[in-house]
């Protein structure tokens, strides 16, 4: 009698624990969230691909002569924010340790477009097609990928500004 009960107790305990895990199969408890399933937004100028947080030096070399550049020191601390104007777009960098990294690209006129075919002057409808939906009466749309926030501003249903902004963890 005694043993029977002890066995029952043990079995109940084990079963209560085990019941919750019967069956077998692959692990699907933790959602599969790593790995890059969304492509990072990048800007392309000719054959040069500019991705956010990329090292600036090789890009500057590949892009050739700029029309104008501007250096903005921060209020305290070392390191400059730099802006290079190439006519159709501006390339912005920030300093991290000893390197300049890309902090943003701003499209300035309709001579350039994004790899997805959106330029200043494009219709809001086309933006929806290219990047996905946004709220109905929004004056801007943002699309986020791993390193980049893509900001598109509209006026009366027409794109007025396109900005690639690096997502920098503070």
């Amino acid at each position, binding site marked *: 009698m005694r043993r029977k009960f002890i066995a029952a107790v*043990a079995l109940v305990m084990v079963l*209560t*624990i085990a019941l919750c895990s019967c069956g077998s199969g692959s*692990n699907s408890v933790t959602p599969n969230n790593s*790995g890059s399933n969304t492509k990072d937004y990048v800007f392309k100028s000719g054959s040069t691909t500019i991705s956010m947080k990329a090292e600036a030096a090789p890009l500057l070399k590949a892009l050739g002569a700029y029309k104008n550049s501007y250096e903005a020191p921060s209020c305290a601390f070392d390191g400059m924010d730099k802006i290079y104007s190439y006519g159709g777009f501006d390339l912005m960098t920030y300093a991290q340790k000893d390197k300049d990294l890309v902090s943003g690209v701003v499209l300035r006129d309709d001579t350039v477009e994004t790899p997805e075919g959106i330029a200043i002057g494009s219709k809001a409808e086309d933006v929806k097609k290219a990047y996905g939906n946004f709220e109905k009466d929004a004056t801007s749309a943002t699309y986020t990928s791993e390193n980049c926030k893509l900001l598109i501003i509209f006026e009366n249903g027409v794109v007025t500004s396109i900005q690639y*902004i*690096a997502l920098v963890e*503070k």
Partner: protein
Amino acid sequence: MSFVSLGFLLFLLILFILYYALPRRFQWVLLLAGSLVFYAFASPKYLIYIAVTALSTWFAGKLIHDEYAARDAYIKDTPDITKEDKKACKEQAKKKARRLMVCCLILNLGILAVCKYTDFTIGTINSLFKTDIAFLRFALPMGISFYTFQSMGYIIDVSRGKYQAELNPAKFALFVTFFPQLVQGPISRFDQLSQTLYSEHDFEAQKITQGAWRAVWGFFKKMVVADRLVPVVTGIAGNPDKYVGGYVLALVFFYTIQLYADFTGGIDITIGVAKMFGVDLAENFDRPFFSKNITEFWRRWHITMGTWFKDYIFYPVSVSKWMLKVSKWSRAKLGPQLGKRVPVYLSTILVWLATGIWHGASWNFVVWGLLNCLVIIISQELEPLYAKFHEKCAFSNTKGWDVFQMFRTFWLMAFLRVLDVYRNVPLTFRMVPTIFSSKGWSEMFSGGMLKLGLEVRDYIIVAVAIVIFLIVGILQGKKPVAEQLAEKPLVPRYLIVWVLIIVILVFGAYGIGFDATQFIYNQF
């Protein structure tokens, strides 16, 4: 409330002063109040869970107590009772007690199962039957596995008549909620803990300082080593596409160091803090990485969990009538040699299955538990071979051989443990073999390891700390280090502690690092 926070230190200081300032007879009441405050700070929403467990277990214990008291009274009041009557009376009381115990177990293990394993079950069902049942996302009450097991151990013991039930619900609540052991154990036994938990404690300077030292040592392990290694471990394990080969070996090593420092450090804090309140908790580790084989390792690592499983699952299942039948059957069919192993191995598998599931609701832990079991059974089977080997080879009795065995056990455990950190089982089995490929190695040593958030100085600190762990481990082999320290003259004794505190403050991996990456001036 995390141990590593100023809030906890402040809480501790206030409680400590009150504890020794108030009349002694209020001490245990204060501990109960402190424990409830601690729990409320950590997860106020879940106080109800721990309250249910404490009260239901207390109540079941009281009912069992009443049952046994009635039985004893009956036997006493019936002078001419026959032996058969006496036996029947005892049998009946026991039966009732067991029924109460089983109810209590079902309730509390049920709560644990629902909280911890619902989503695990749903996930498994979803992947098995291609269904899409939504996860319920129960948040886990803090320490639920620990306090549930501790309470269940109590009720089983009470029904077995091992000791008397605690009749005062507040006192029993303290046993369940005692704050130092809430977060990560140890899983105490009522008969051991109750001796010091409820008694009155004088201000024993010796004991208190030793407790404080132990806690400081725990903070050192946790803050200087464990927390420092977090970015490496999560970095490598979180990006399996990027970090292969050599990185996986680094992960195996650093995760084991991190786990050791974090878990044993936490237990050091727990035991040290309890000691400062005069309470003696059971040791949970006995220098586990000095073990020569995996069976020994499991006797020395997370001891209170191991003995819990042994006492409340392994033995009861092994000696159950059902198992004895299995034993008889297997002997008849498989012969005495093989047959007698069947029940032991069956129980072992069951225990490790439970151990795996207890560690976490995922298949990683199930597989991990079963692999441990496999290694243990294999080494058990190879025992005769070992014996022969020892007879034949003289060098197998040298110190060097011992060290080799410890080294082997360390890596064996380390490789099994890597199941904790990868996302799922198949991934783990895919990643580990890459160690033997050439991938990742050259990148790793040409600055790759420095891209994981740790700098050279951090690796140096970890290396020095590992050496310190080893030295302290060897010293501990003779006698508890706190006692050895207490025998030292005043100046070196305090110097050591003083240096340790400074080291924690300066080299601890906490707060916001003052490094260049913090200074990104982002004006966009």
